[in-house]
């Protein structure tokens, strides 16, 4: 394992600990990264799912923050 990858893993572990209550985001980001790393051409179902999830994430971020 290269030092760069090791650094990423260590940083990721630190973050996983800090965001344990956000396991849905861990899974969604993981799925997106797998999609990025996959060399195969994405299926229409993959494309649709990615669009729906990105729209959902942006909608949550864009909503007003409660006081």
């Amino acid at each position, binding site marked *: 394992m290269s030092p760069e990858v090791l650094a990423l*893993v260590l940083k990721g572990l630190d973050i996983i600990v*800090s965001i344990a209550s956000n396991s849905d985001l861990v899974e969604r*980001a993981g799925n997106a990264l797998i999609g990025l790393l996959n060399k195969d051409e994405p299926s229409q179902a*993959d494309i649709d799912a*990615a669009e729906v999830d990105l729209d959902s994430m*942006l909608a949550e971020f*864009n909503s007003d*923050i409660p006081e």
Partner: protein
Amino acid sequence: MKRPILVLAFAASLSGCASITSQFAGFDVTASVSNPVTPERLYRVEQAARVATAGLLTYRRLCILRKIDQSCRQTIASIQVYTRRLSPVLVSLRTFVRANDQINAINTFNLAREILTEIQAQRTAANVDAAIGGKS
């Protein structure tokens, strides 16, 4: 095998969308007639945006729970100026790419690229990634 991938995903999300998009999505260069916006290219950009948005959502959730400095509210409002512009741009971009309307797809892709670049700049200026990673 699944866990290291998830760890790397979050590490990547917190290292910012710029490095992800430049490495995987071809978002480091503008679209043009000689470098068109294919469905696969759009897919990879949207995947990178998902990873990056996961980091922003973590920041937002920590902010609402008051687990990070409350200046986060102003930071989120500043970033929302751009993320709210991005949503309709993405909808248009998908439509143009599906219709293979490359003139409009290229223009819209480059607009989305400008917006994402600005989001990344705001995120870096506000130390969003450090705020998330430094919290336990």
